[in-house]
């Protein structure tokens, strides 16, 4: 079944690859002209168009690119002249630290607040609704700047931006903890708010379900009813939400990465887009799609183990 799901992902990957290639083909801005600068020497334009294959028919270009990608070759960056896999590999490590930290914070905070609101109700529940509404509504770039102005420029507790230098594991530097904090909070705000809402709703539904009422009637302690009976049943929708949000964190991190000068995948794609560095943009989008699909599959597997009624491949 897992193999079947993995095979189902292939058409999705192909569609994403084709879409991004098509978009990059139709958006205005000639990569050769951008490389050649404001004085576009025709000799340079001709040379780079030939080297990059831009002088060949679009169908030939597309098929050549697709053939290479299917063999795992993402090509070479036009402007940086480095393999795309190398550029994105470095950036993915940086984004992963941020996305994983944000996912942990968002899940812990979101589930805890959602559960507490469902349990306590009243004023706390009202406050949570307002707070989550703010978390969902505030654009991440604005929240990021607000945090910088408060905690970096104002209180001087944390660095304004940058990756910093944390522990090195197998030659890979983790970010400094102090540098990680503000971008993590910025990136976690939206998913935390959404997870809190989903947890609250799922738990309220489960608290009025028959099996929970039966548990109460059997005299099982309230905390045990909440965590063992209601919360476990509520975990399936929460897990699905967490999974989808975590997968999307890699893609939506771009605004946070720009505000905090974080050297991640989103920023690499953003910079490449400015320069019309097509191989990097195409490779980056493909990478994010593949990660999204992989996380999605992992979530489905987790849901199946949490709820025996859910079985992979049965819709």
């Amino acid at each position, binding site marked *: 079944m897992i193999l079947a799901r993995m095979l189902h992902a292939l058409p999705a990957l192909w569609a994403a690859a084709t879409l991004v290639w098509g978009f990059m083909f139709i958006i205005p801005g000639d990569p050769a*002209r951008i490389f050649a600068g404001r*004085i576009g*020497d025709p000799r340079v334009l001709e040379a780079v168009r030939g080297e990059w294959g831009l002088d060949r028919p679009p169908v030939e270009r597309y098929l050549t690119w697709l053939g290479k990608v299917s063999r795992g070759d993402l090509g070479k960056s036009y402007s940086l002249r480095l393999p795309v896999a190398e550029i994105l590999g470095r950036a993915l490590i940086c984004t992963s630290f941020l996305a994983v930290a944000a996912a942990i914070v968002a899940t812990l905070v979101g589930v805890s607040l959602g559960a507490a609101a469902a349990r306590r109700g009243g004023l706390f529940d009202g406050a949570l609704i307002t707070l989550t509404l703010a978390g969902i509504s505030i654009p991440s770039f604005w929240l990021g*700047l607000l945090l910088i102005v408060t905690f970096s420029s104002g209180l001087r507790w944390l660095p304004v931006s940058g990756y910093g230098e944390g522990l090195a594991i197998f030659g890979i530097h983790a970010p400094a903890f102090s540098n990680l*904090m503000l971008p993590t909070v910025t990136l976690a705000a939206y998913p935390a708010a959404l997870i809190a809402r989903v947890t609250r709703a799922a738990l309220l539904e489960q608290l009025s379900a028959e099996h929970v009422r039966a548990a109460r009637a059997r005299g099982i302690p309230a905390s*045990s009813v*909440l965590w063992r009976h209601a919360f476990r049943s509520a975990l399936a929708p929460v897990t699905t939400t967490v999974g989808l949000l975590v997968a999307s964190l890699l893609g939506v991190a771009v605004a946070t990465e720009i505000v*905090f000068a974080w050297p991640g995948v989103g920023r690499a794609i953003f910079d490449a887009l400015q*320069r019309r560095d097509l191989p990097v943009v195409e490779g980056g989008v493909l990478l994010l799609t593949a990660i999204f699909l992989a996380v999605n599959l992992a979530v489905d597997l987790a849901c199946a183990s949490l709820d025996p009624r859910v079985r992979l491949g049965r819709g």
Partner: protein
Amino acid sequence: MKVNGKRMRLALAAALLTALVPLPVCARDDAYFRYRMSSDPPTLDPIQPPDESTGLYLFNIFDGLVEFSPGGVEIVPAVAESWTLSPDGTRYTFKLRKGVRFHNGREVVAADIVYSLKRGLQPKKGSGVVPLLDTIKGAREFAARAKPDLPGVLAPDPATVVITLERPFAPFLAALASVAGSIMPSEVYDDPKEGYLEHPVGCGPFQFEAWDRGVSIRLSAFKQHWKGPPAIAGLAFRFLPDVSTAFEEFKTGGLEYDNEVPLGRRAWIRANLAAEYRVWPRVATSFVAFNFLREPLRGNVKLRRALNFAVDRDRIARVLQEGKDVATSRILPPELLGHNPAPGPYRYDPAEAKKLLAEGGYPEGKGLPEIVYLTPNNEAILHYAQAVQSDLAAVGVKVRISAQQFGAYLKGIQGTKESGADASIFNLLWYPDLPDPDGFLRVLFHSTNFEMGNYSRYANPAADRLLDEGRAELDPKKREAIYRKAEDFLLSDASCIPLYYQFEDGLLSARVKGFVNNPIGDFATHLELIRLGP
């Protein structure tokens, strides 16, 4: 699964407390001059097409035979300690300074200059400096691979370089002072694996130290530099894409220099950071260019003059550019030879504009088709593009702004051979690659330059003649007179709508001494001369 609610609450509280505990801000790299850049450069190869941001690294890593003076546009000796020019103005003989070394320790010899200029003349390698060097004898044939040798550059002995030009070319020394004159060691730049793209080797005051992609580039002081070791430990170029973040970094001491002020914050900065805020002139003029391949502007000088009289340049400079720039109706900026300090021929006069519009065949704008105005999709530029639009509307000229992302805008202004740019008028901020009137007027208005700067497709034999004369004349006094005449001619023909002389502004930490902005651009600032206080 048994979960203890009390323990869970405790764990949650601990996690929240950890997040709130103030942590020490990481140690600052105080011995380096930290400079903000918005993104990584493409590569650090000096032959790539000239670009503002890469120029900054290249000017510090590489030296040429000559260089621009600190804070000025004069040419002063660098690796060459002296030179002579033949009476016919075509042959330069440079004597090299003794003891100049590359960062790999080898001494610079004349053959390195021959090698470097040849390397720059290879469009097949994507070299963008060919137009700056192609006045060298045999350069065009060499660049086209029609001939294997470059007869115009010779090294008769290890300490002498002779460069012969096809014809006298007054800005040639400026071309050698630009990145096109960077001296490279062949043993590094012939590497087929292209290791030099990420680890450049030159003979400039700073040597490459590290490139952490997306984070910073670090250059350290080159102790064996021919001027003596720089007074600072090195340069750290931090990549900060967001202007507001960079501003906060500067305020908290994370940058010594921030060269971009957030839009709308100038008044606050003048009031609160007066000691750090600086404004300096740039060899650059902002103007609205016409498309001379399209009706109705082609062949209708009265219409073009009417548009010139209709625009309120003072308001644009004073209000929309927050008082940073200086309004002008001239083209050549004050730092360039040929600049005329007298007021230009166009003042803000809507009545005169209406009169000329009627004389041009469009009374009150009747019958005049809508004019498309192409601009980059940039907030500051859009501000004044809208002001131009409303000024023209006030005299009856309908303008539609087409704001494009930079790549599309660039493609749009370069246009096609048949119809020129994609619009009737377009915005252009021109800063020349060489600080010389040739790099301004010839690039923008000579009829042989349609594909490399003259995107207006302006063609006038009288203007061409003057611009050819100016390029070949070596006497500065005579050149000045020629360029003044050329500018007057171009203005009387209403070849464009000049708006303002560009000024730059930025924030410099009070601990920095000896920093002098160069009007050519920040890339030409002599960072080896600065010192850092406590």
